């Protein structure tokens, strides 16, 4: 599954790549949650810079990871979103719970 993790003090970055749809979202969810629950970072950062396609399943993935990380008091950041991806994310209202950064 195309996700790479980078660990810094208090910060865990999950760099996603390829196409994120319903088919890919399940395995991604498991891998990110496994790492987040094990490492319990203060900040979980989802990097969308190498994502070539996404649909609303990626929005569900982000909202679900917000629930994972906030369950133990962490924060969520979503970075390097394309303009279209950011537009889609904002339809969900997630910008009120997490930090969104566009490319």
């Amino acid at each position, binding site marked *: 599954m195309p996700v790479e993790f980078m660990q810094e003090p208090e910060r865990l970055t999950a760099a996603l790549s390829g*196409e994120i*749809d319903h*088919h890919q979202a399940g395995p991604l969810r498991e891998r990110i949650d496994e790492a987040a629950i094990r490492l319990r970072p203060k900040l979980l950062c989802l990097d969308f810079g190498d994502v070539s*396609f996404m649909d*609303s399943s990626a929005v*569900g*993935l982000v909202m679900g990871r917000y629930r994972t990380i906030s369950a133990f008091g962490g924060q969520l950041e979503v970075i390097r979103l394309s303009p*279209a991806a950011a537009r*889609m994310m904002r339809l*969900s209202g997630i910008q009120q719970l997490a930090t969104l950064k566009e490319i």
Partner: protein
Amino acid sequence: MKACINQMKLEIESRSVNESFARAAVAAFAAQLDPTLEELSDIKTAVSEAVTNCIVHAYPDRRGQIYLWAGLYEDGLVRVRIRDRGCGIADVRQAMEPLFTTLGGERSGLGFAVMESFMDRVRVRSILGSGTTVTLEKRILGRAARDGD
């Protein structure tokens, strides 16, 4: 109404692995109208939403068929129809409201909202117990229009 210049049909099984195949197939067909990358990406996204809904909602606990049809028109219109013979939608208007979902969990309830924001027109016809048809339309202005030649 402008004439249809080309059509295609595709029938696939409701397996999630077919989501990427379905959107890529429709995009490859629509590429005949010389769309911009952004227009192609909008079509892919909307098709992905409709096909995923067939897999996740129409056939929740069985394998079913998904019927895709796409037509290209003289004036640059792309029309895509995604049809299933699944459970149907009780209240289409409510289903199309942003954030409305009957599944929860990792679903955000944004599929129809995304189709509406990425396409020019979205129509949904559904009969409870017999299936749903989603029709998507987008006018391709294309690379030529954008480049001004």
